[in-house]
């Protein structure tokens, strides 16, 4: 029996999803979609233009009229139905996601898609328990603060978790009563459309609209469309700033998630015993290779107390070298392909740079030629460099399975190195010391600090960046606030006039 998921049949080409229907792009163009698994074209996606954006925004705007007035009960029921449909088709969706993105099916089955299901359920749940506020400001004056949805939301999605990142944005936007025009990344345009084939008819037409194409052609017309009321983006700092710049035209709010260079700090007490916790800590360091390192919070800087460096790193290197590379559709494969040739080439340039700038290569350091059917795929060996925090491989987000290790002598030095970065998205702190468990995370300037764990993303825990890592907190009911505005009704129960005129 093969342990390899069967490739589903894909359509020859995928249209946009607009107004509840698969809709051909106005100009009739499509682009080839390559699977990173083997570098081969497996289907085509719509190469849309601003005309398609306009059509989608118009449909979303129309749908908002009724969708914004649905009861929270109704929206909650529909979000739960979506969650159930996804759960019932989990293996199929996970397979499609793996083909689109190249990540191992082990991860899409155990993480990406189950998190998607739970995310819809979380937002279906929290909106039922919410209440608006009312305040008696004086005996005759009452203030009601009611939340109202914004309108049409523009969402621009990255390629590292094509479905999960879409759902982090879709679930709160829909729960809050908005409609959406979503642009997937051009390197992973298909899985979200396959998802729409399954869940599209659960929602009224126009509530979710998907338009594929290139950011260069669609980003500006989407964010600056006068009927768009908010933009949400995940990606690079330059593009994030451009989205903000576009958002100034119509004074619309933005939420941004823009990456990091996250420190993973291992205090001395970690190696006090060779027990389950030590074993967990070693895995925690090796999580740099999860999703082939293509995670905004990837723990790509490893900070280890110098006294435990040898004991700890020998085990980390051993565990890294035990990572099984192979066909991402094989359930035994632990590391898959990078999402695109461009990404693979970028990582290769950093591998070269790391060696050039004098970092010590501890393991890996090259592409991974897997041969056979996978020969054209985009594979990189999990790589560990030792160096210091001023090296470029410690400061730039490589977005690949590349770890940069350095040591520290004191807690103060660990905190200083951890914070010596322009980003502040994620961080990890590992210790057996009760005081450090509280004090070190508080001193790290990052929106999410994992303590004695890493890379968990449960709904209910707010996620977002400090510093140049962005604006907003996803994964939590507070995200509803980013998709709504407040209607204040200020009521006077006083029959007497003010007396001014």
């Amino acid at each position, binding site marked *: 029996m093969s342990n390899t998921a069967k490739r589903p049949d894909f359509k020859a080409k995928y249209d946009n999803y607009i107004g509840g229907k698969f809709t051909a792009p106005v100009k009739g163009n499509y682009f080839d979609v390559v699977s990173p698994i083997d570098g081969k074209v497996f289907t085509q996606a719509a190469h849309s233009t601003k005309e398609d954006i306009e059509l989608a925004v118009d449909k979303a705007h129309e749908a908002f009229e009724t969708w914004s007035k649905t009861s929270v009960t109704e929206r909650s029921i529909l979000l739960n139905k979506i969650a159930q449909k996804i759960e019932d088709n989990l293996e199929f969706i996970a397979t499609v996601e793996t083909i689109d993105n190249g990540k191992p099916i082990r991860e899409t089955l155990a993480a990406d898609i189950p998190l998607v299901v739970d995310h819809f359920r979380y937002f279906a749940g929290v909106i039922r328990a919410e209440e608006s506020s009312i305040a008696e400001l004086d005996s005759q004056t009452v203030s009601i603060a009611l939340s109202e949805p914004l309108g049409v939301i523009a969402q621009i999605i990255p390629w590292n978790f094509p479905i999960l990142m879409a759902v982090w944005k879709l679930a709160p936007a829909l729960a809050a009563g908005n409609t959406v025009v979503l642009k997937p990344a051009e390197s992973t345009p298909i899985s979200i459309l396959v998802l729409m084939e399954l869940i599209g008819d659960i929602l009224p037409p126009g509530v979710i609209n998907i338009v594929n194409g290139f950011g*260069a052609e669609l980003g500006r017309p989407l964010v600056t469309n006068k009927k768009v009321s908010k933009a949400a983006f995940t990606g690079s700092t330059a593009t994030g700033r451009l989205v903000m710049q576009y958002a100034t035209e119509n004074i619309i709010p933005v939420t941004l998630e823009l*990456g990091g260079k996250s420190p993973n700090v291992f205090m001395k007490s970690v190696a006090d015993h060779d027990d389950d916790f030590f074993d967990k800590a070693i895995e925690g360091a090796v999580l740099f290779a999860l999703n082939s390192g293509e995670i905004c919070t990837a723990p790509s800087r490893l900070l280890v107390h110098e006294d435990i460096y040898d004991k700890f790193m020998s085990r980390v290197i051993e565990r890294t070298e035990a990572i099984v590379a192979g066909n991402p559709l094989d359930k035994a494969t632990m590391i898959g392909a990078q999402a695109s040739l*461009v990404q693979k080439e970028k990582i290769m*340039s950093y591998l070269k740079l790391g060696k050039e700038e004098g970092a010590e290569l501890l393991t890996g350091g090259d592409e991974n030629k897997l041969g056979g059917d996978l020969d054209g795929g985009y594979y990189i060996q999990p790589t560990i460099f030792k160096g210091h925090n001023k090296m470029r491989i410690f*400061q*730039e987000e490589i*977005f690949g399975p590349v770890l940069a290790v350095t040591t520290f002598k004191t807690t103060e030095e660990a905190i200083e190195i951890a914070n010596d970065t322009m980003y502040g998205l994620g961080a990890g702190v590992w210790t057996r010391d009760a005081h450090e468990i509280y004090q070190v995370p508080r001193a790290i300037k990052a929106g999410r600090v994992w303590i004695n764990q890493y890379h968990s993303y449960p709904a209910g825990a707010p996620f977002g960046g400090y510093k140049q890592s962005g604006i907003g907190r996803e994964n939590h009911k507070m995200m509803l606030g980013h998709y709504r505005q407040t209607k204040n009704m200020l009521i006077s129960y006083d029959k007497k006039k003010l007396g001014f005129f």
Partner: protein
Amino acid sequence: MTKRIDATEKAIELIHILKEKHGDLMFYQAGGCCEGTQPQCFEKGGFYQRMGDVCIGEIEGTEFWVDNDLFEYWKNAHFTLKVIDAFGAGGFSLESPLKKSFQIEYRLFTEEELENLEPVHFIE
């Protein structure tokens, strides 16, 4: 004087194609996830630089700007602008609809080169 940035023939050719379509251009490179640290090509003036951002040189009259925080790390490297016949970085760079991506190849300057570098200019 040593230049901080050069371009391959193919990159120059692509710049000409994009100029014909979009008029004057600019490059900008910053950090972050996905397309972060990729050079992005925009219409000239289409990207609002930060105070302190650095222009490290010109290619075919097109200015190449980098983020001021990252210049601290990039100032010791020579940039070669090249082109890959593929897309997928993401971002809003103008070449991607042509199924191409600009990319930078880095080379650390020698001691000698470091002493004789072309001056840069900043947004002030």
